[in-house]
């Protein structure tokens, strides 16, 4: 291990330049110390300069954890690449930590590369409180078990040379260090600071810029290496945002006008953005008294006009299920976005999981066929809202969109959407109903029917959650219930007939096919690339439609000796006590695929409370395939 000294060396040798295709940086601190702002600006500028970027928040579960505890570690990971970055990667190469305890947290989570450079505020080593000094020393000892390069930095002392309160603005000093190491464009950084602090005074801006420059010059004098990641100018204009922002803006692009919601992590930020901007588009956010009411209000609004949506997370989905059944039964279009988090119950409110798939499909009681979609990227979060609105309206049913905390809080650039007026919902047509038009005039082939909206002369009828005939008259006869059930179900078969098989990433034949859904696509494909480079015959495919599933899946499976899902949910492992082939509880997509294809689909799933690392998936691939392609 090579613990560098922070003391300045006279006439330093020119810094060593590390030319790499990618590098991962973390800024970690106690919450409220500005690490996120530092990382966001760094990431935005890196994207502007032509690097691929994936940013993910490191969120403590507590609102206000005590300072200097590992559980309070808060901040961001920024993964930079020469090309597009699709996931948060494996381990971090460089960390700036505002205290040694939050650094320790990352170490204990195995988040740091063995060769990582750790820049850590060292004022704690000199603290008046002997307990703090002891904690520092213990942490350094624990960290010394790995060959990290630890670089102590007297951040606050440096900041004190130009400001009175170094607690505020230390993040800008850190940003300056990063700007120097990664050779970022200082003009762009200053522009970004101006944008970030646009609601603050000129004085605040000036002070932040001074601290930025202080950090930059400090690194110039004290850091003996630089990191160079090739950049490529984007061919198309890009936008950079997280998945929740993409959902919110996609909802506007889809022509929806009402978001009814109740606060729940990690879904709420969709409504934060919409609350800020929706009204200028003629839309509104209704914060209902509870999750149930939020769903009911969206249904009422959809029924009376344009499709509305509600956005929630696991426990909220559970509460909404009664209303979902009603919307499906009355064929009122509705879009529901579920930003999945760890469960069951309150579970892991801020952490990613893909455990709501079966609940999304089956939580409503009775036979309640509806559409379930899962975007795989942040860009897809935007566009899927347009698809969801249109499907809800065309098929007169509930469309559930499953994202997760990884997409919700991940930030990455993607091509700026080329908007289309046709995505917008057409104005309400309140023309008199056609002669003979019925509330449920099911086309007996397709189950499709045109809905009647209140205000249409001659269309008066009562919608009911009771079993009903095509005139919406309450019907208890078994014949009518059989027929109406078939009509509601048929719609999914019709939709499936319009879909195309999912593309296969890699050759169509091989030893192993990985099947994923949702936010894991980037990590899975990266793992597949790495495995193929090792000679393993593995490909992957990714499902966006979970109900109905895309067609041709069984045929794709036939090209592979083994099929395995990779998911962020819990499954038993063969070999665990009492677990047998017969009673093994499998990953949720594996469960569905086995049922629909009769193929013996295996699964590799984990619930680490963090996005899957491509390296972990690679390990799983190695474990389930013949090595070196020697089948």
């Amino acid at each position, binding site marked *: 291990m090579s613990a560098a000294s922070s003391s300045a060396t006279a006439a330093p040798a020119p810094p060593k330049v590390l030319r790499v295709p990618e590098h991962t940086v973390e800024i970690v601190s106690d919450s409220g110390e500005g690490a996120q702002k530092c990382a966001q600006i760094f990431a*935005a500028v890196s*994207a*502007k300069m032509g690097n691929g970027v994936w940013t993910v928040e490191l969120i403590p579960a507590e609102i206000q954890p005590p300072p200097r505890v590992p559980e309070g570690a808060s901040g961001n990971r920024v993964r930079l690449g020469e090309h597009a970055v699709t996931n948060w990667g494996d381990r971090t190469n460089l960390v700036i930590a505002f205290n040694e305890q939050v650094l320790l947290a990352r170490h204990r989570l195995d988040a740091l590369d063995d060769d990582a450079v750790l820049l850590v505020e060292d004022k704690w080593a000199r603290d008046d409180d002997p307990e703090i000094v002891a904690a520092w020393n213990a942490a350094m000892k624990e960290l010394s078990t790995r060959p990290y390069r630890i670089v102590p930095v007297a951040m606050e002392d440096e900041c004190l040379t130009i400001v009175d309160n170094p607690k505020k603005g230390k993040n800008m000093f850190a940003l300056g260090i990063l700007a120097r190491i990664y050779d970022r464009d200082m003009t762009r950084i200053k522009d970004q600071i101006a944008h970030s602090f646009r609601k603050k005074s000129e004085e605040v801006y000036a002070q932040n810029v001074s601290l930025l420059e202080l950090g930059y010059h400090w690194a110039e004098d004290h850091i003996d290496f630089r990191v160079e990641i090739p950049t490529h100018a*984007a061919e198309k*204009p890009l*936008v*950079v945002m997280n998945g929740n*922002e993409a959902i919110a*803006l996609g909802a*506007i*692009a889809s022509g929806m*006008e*009402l978001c*009814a919601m109740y606060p729940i992590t990690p879904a709420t930020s969709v409504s934060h953005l919409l609350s800020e*901007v929706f*009204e*200028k*588009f*003629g839309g*509104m956010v*209704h914060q*209902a*008294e509870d999750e*149930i*009411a939020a*769903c*009911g*209000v*969206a*249904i*009422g*609004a959809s*029924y*009376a*006009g*344009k499709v*509305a949506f509600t956005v929630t997370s696991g426990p909220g989905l559970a509460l909404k299920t*009664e*209303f979902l059944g*009603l919307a499906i039964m*009355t064929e009122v279009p509705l879009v529901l976005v579920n930003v999945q988090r760890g469960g069951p119950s309150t579970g892991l409110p801020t952490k990613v999981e893909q455990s709501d798939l079966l609940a999304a499909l089956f939580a409503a009681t009775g036979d309640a066929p509806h559409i379930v979609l899962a975007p795989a990227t942040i860009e897809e979060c935007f566009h899927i809202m347009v698809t969801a609105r249109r499907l809800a309206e065309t098929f007169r049913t509930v469309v559930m969109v499953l994202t997760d905390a990884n997409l919700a809080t991940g930030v990455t650039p993607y091509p700026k*959407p080329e*908007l289309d*007026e046709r995505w*917008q*919902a057409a104005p309400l047509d*309140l*023309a008199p109903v056609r002669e003979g038009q019925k509330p449920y005039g099911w086309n007996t082939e397709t189950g499709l029917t045109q809905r009647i909206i*209140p*205000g*249409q*002369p001659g*269309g*008066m*009828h*009562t*919608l*009911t*959650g009771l079993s009903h005939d095509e005139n919406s*008259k309450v019907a208890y006869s078994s014949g009518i219930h059989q027929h109406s059930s078939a009509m509601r179900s048929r719609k999914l078969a019709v939709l499936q007939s319009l879909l195309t098989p999912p593309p296969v990433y890699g050759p169509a034949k091989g030893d192993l096919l990985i099947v994923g859904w949702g936010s894991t696509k980037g990590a899975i494909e990266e793992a597949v690339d790495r495995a193929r480079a090792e000679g393993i015959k593995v490909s992957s495919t990714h499902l966006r439609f979970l109900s109905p599933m895309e067609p041709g899946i069984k045929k794709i499976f036939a090209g592979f000796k083994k099929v395995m899902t990779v998911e962020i949910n819990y499954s038993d492992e063969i070999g665990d006590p009492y677990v047998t082939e017969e009673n093994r509880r499998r990953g949720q997509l594996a469960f569905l695929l086995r049922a629909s294809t009769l193929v013996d689909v295996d699964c590799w799933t984990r619930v680490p409370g963090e996005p899957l690392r491509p390296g972990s998936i690679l390990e799983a691939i190695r474990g389930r395939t013949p090595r070196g392609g020697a089948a």
Partner: protein
Amino acid sequence: MSISCGLLPVLNLDAGEHQYEMSEYEGAKARWCPGCGDHSVLTSVQRLLAAEQLIPDQTMFVSGIGCSSRFPHYLKTYGFHGLHGRALPVATGIKLHRPELNVFVVMGDGDCTSIGAGHWLHAMRYNMDMTVMMLDNGIYGLTKNQTSPTTPQGFKSNTQPKGSWLPPMNPIEIALGVTNASFVAQTAEWAPAHLYATLRAAYHHKGFSFVRILQRCPVFTPLIFQQAVQDPARITLMVHDDGVVAPELNNIYSSQVHHDPRDLAAARAMAEQTEKIHLGVFFKDPSKPRYEETRRVAPHTPAERVALLDKELDRYAV
């Protein structure tokens, strides 16, 4: 006719010439038990619709689940017969998106004050312009004789065969305690003239008009208001020009109190008195903010929205 100008283009021009008869508001034949108070409410509502000449296709009845929630089926307007306790969220969504529709809500006592109690409190606070009837017969009828929050103490039911354990909930007191509630009234199914006049006052109030309608269930609670039905002296009418105006009742109900519906303190004092049943408007304040007005947003054309969104996306430009 209460229709907004925005709707004129979609109306049949002949509508102005058409006089709606009561029978034109009749839907399916009502299937409530003979003697059920719901019939009386239905008749009063049909009379109101005809008196106000509400256009059936611009009129919406939303209900929950229970005997009374069958209401929309028996009218020839638009109807939404949804979930137990959850008529109000649906009505809220309808009114938010389509404020020009005439929205009526029909709930039972279990529907409104038990499983839907949370929605009820918040809907009163939203104060959206809708006429909300709570048909209170003090029992769950559809599911056959279970205690509801308004069942009299000691009343024997299938779920509390030794008699209801607790004193009944007083929905009027609760309604009068809700911030931003703007109209709270009580009437009774066995006084049709009062019922009609109360519903009319409720309809004309701009805001959330909450009307509790006292009823008897002919099967399970036929006697709960027996004394009041037989002895009008047990009933006190609250009278005021701004309340329920029904002079034809003066001969029947001699016990009257002059009550200004703006006087919330007096309203609460009367709501607490249980030895006499007060009928009329307890409280009314048309100046309370209405959520659908507060939240009204100017509509935009698709082209405007696309142009604005394109600009919004530039805020995220790399």
